């Protein structure tokens, strides 16, 4: 128990806050508790997917500040792909593909060309804003809406059942992705190697791992997650693409990634906590229970995050080699 606390302080506090909060609302009414959690989860899904892009990249030693741009282009490609071809599937594939393409671009510039990684990310962000704004066209609609799938048995769980297990495909997949990625990263050979090239690339190289190749592959594939986040925004969470639809979620995701100490499960907990704080802020606004301007109430999630970090001593350590281009034989 003590070890659990030591290693996962942040996660434990976050879970405690969410659980206690949920029970408070449970007493105020079942529907209310459920709706708050639904709202929190809806807010958390794109943040989790985007944060995982960062987790995979940085665990491999590549900083990705271009997640915002990756999501934006993916949302664009997914929506217009679906609208113009009349097929949701093609839209999703295009969205995923666009995310991966930009992941590949980041990998190529940062890993192959050894450009400063932050610059590579910023280029993606600026270009994404420009491109999506430049080529935006209104008057398109999706050919349909995603089905809502219900997972048998799990969906009947009290409170959490309907929230997490009766949802659109991306929201459902997110749960699976978090669990699988956490397993991959900490329990498999791929995970060990990935963490190795992010921590001690020279040692990994000596051990026979092709650092460059692995970084290229990992960063490119992580783009799929950004693609999923983008497609979720324009096809599942809304049914439209608008300029700036990502609304800085890509940057918030960076914070979530660090908040979650570069671990998928913790990042998910952090995102859910953040979403929950957001839901409380909007509920306070809607219920008019406190006479505080909404502009101030809406800073609640950010203030709470800072407090949790300060209290739990968010001393987390980034992968040691991230941001540093790998050159064989140097170091």
């Amino acid at each position, binding site marked *: 128990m003590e070890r659990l606390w030591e290693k996962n302080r942040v996660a434990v506090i976050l879970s405690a806050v969410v659980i206690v909060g949920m029970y408070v609302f449970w007493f105020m009414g079942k529907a209310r508790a459920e*709706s708050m959690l639904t709202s929190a989860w809806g807010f958390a899904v*794109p943040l989790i997917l985007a944060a995982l892009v960062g987790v995979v990249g940085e665990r491999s030693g590549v900083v990705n500040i271009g997640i915002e741009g990756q999501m934006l282009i993916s949302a664009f490609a997914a929506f217009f792909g679906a609208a113009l071809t009349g097929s949701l599937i093609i839209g999703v594939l295009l969205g995923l593909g666009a995310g991966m393409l930009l992941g590949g671009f980041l990998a190529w510039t940062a890993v192959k*060309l050894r450009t400063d990684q932050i610059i590579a990310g910023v280029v993606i962000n600026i270009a994404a804003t420009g491109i999506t704004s430049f*080529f935006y066209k209104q008057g398109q609609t999706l050919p349909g809406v995603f089905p809502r799938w219900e997972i048998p048995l799990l969906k009947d769980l009290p409170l959490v059942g309907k929230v997490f297990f009766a949802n659109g495909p991306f929201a459902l997949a997110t749960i699976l992705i978090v669990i699988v990625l956490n397993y991959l990263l900490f329990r498999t050979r791929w995970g060990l190697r990935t963490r190795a090239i992010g921590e001690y690339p020279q040692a990994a190289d000596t051990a026979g791992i092709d650092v460059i190749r692995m970084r290229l592959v990992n960063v490119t594939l992580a783009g799929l997650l950004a693609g999923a986040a983008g497609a979720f925004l324009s096809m599942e969470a*809304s049914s439209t693409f608008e300029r*700036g*639809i990502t*609304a800085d979620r890509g940057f918030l995701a960076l914070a979530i990634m660090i908040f979650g100490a570069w671990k998928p499960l913790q990042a998910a907990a952090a995102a859910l906590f953040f979403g929950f704080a957001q839901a409380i802020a*909007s509920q306070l606004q809607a219920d008019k229970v406190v006479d505080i301007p*909404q502009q101030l109430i809406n800073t609640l999630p950010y203030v709470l995050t800072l407090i949790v970090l300060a209290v739990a001593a968010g001393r987390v350590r980034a992968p040691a080699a991230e941001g540093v281009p790998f050159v064989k034989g140097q170091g």
Partner: protein
Amino acid sequence: MKAKRALALVPVLALALAGCGGSSGGGNAGGGGATDADCAKAEVLCVGLVTDTGKVDDKSFNQSAWEGVQAAVKELGGVSKYVETTDTKDYGNNIKQFTDKKYDAIVTVGFLMADATAAAAKGSPDVKFIGVDQAQPEKDAPANYTSLVFPEDQAGYAAGVLAAKLTKTGKLAQVLGLQIPPVEKFAKGFEAGAKSVKSDIQVTAVYHPAGTNAFTDPVWGGNEAKKALAQGADVVFGAGGKTGNGALAEVAKASGAGTSVFCIGVDTDQWNTVPEAQKCLVTSAMKNITLGVTDLVKQVKAGSIKGGYFNGTTGLADYHDLKGAVPADVQTAVADVVKGLADGSLKTGVTL
């Protein structure tokens, strides 16, 4: 030589990118092939438009105003053109593009542009300025500056009355954009209208968390609408650009959309601008910017335009396919409210 090849790739990529379509909006010269070089001539009508930060195809007030300009120019002949603002500090410079070319009328959109427009009007007394949603300066208002304003609270009020008569649960929700006067007037009008029907009705309102994305965040809007529905609201008023549109589209996905759950749009008849919301969209609280701008541009041409405030009209959009969902007595009652508001016999009582 790898690097060289890669370098050569960059322009190719750019070309490919450029090839995949793209539009440039901008000007159109109607009638007689006049260009803005002819604007100095008295007989050629030239109308310029400066958007607020945002784009001319924003499905919202910038677009409505631009459509108004285009409608007028199409009818009267002449030249029209727009400049899109990217930084609020550029308002003056953007207006100047048109005064430099001796445009006859310049439409500036958005309440933030009031100062810049008034200043430009003083500097170019021969040009007519039409400011949408703008407050006139308290003193020394230039005679060539007309503010097109709307009683948004009246449209909101009528929508509120309709919502209150439609709800079964007694709970209404509003999903709003940035907390600024035009949005607040819609929201407070809506609440006042609803309460005039049932004083104990519950009306919630959430504004988007302050920031630059308040009007362009349909994801947030959808999430808030979902929460409101789960808490028992059965009519959602989405007022706040694309953020509100997100709320409408989310309600359209809910079970019972169009039969027991409804949504109400804002600004224009969103039946046309947000087709994904048609399933639940019972009406829209309209602010007839397009009509108002067209009207004023025509007055410029006729030489009859006056400075000061010009009141535009508001109202409710057609029920379209959901006409059947609105009982006949409700339709009559709402029509009476709209009429009463228009002739002044009914007041919303909304103050900011």
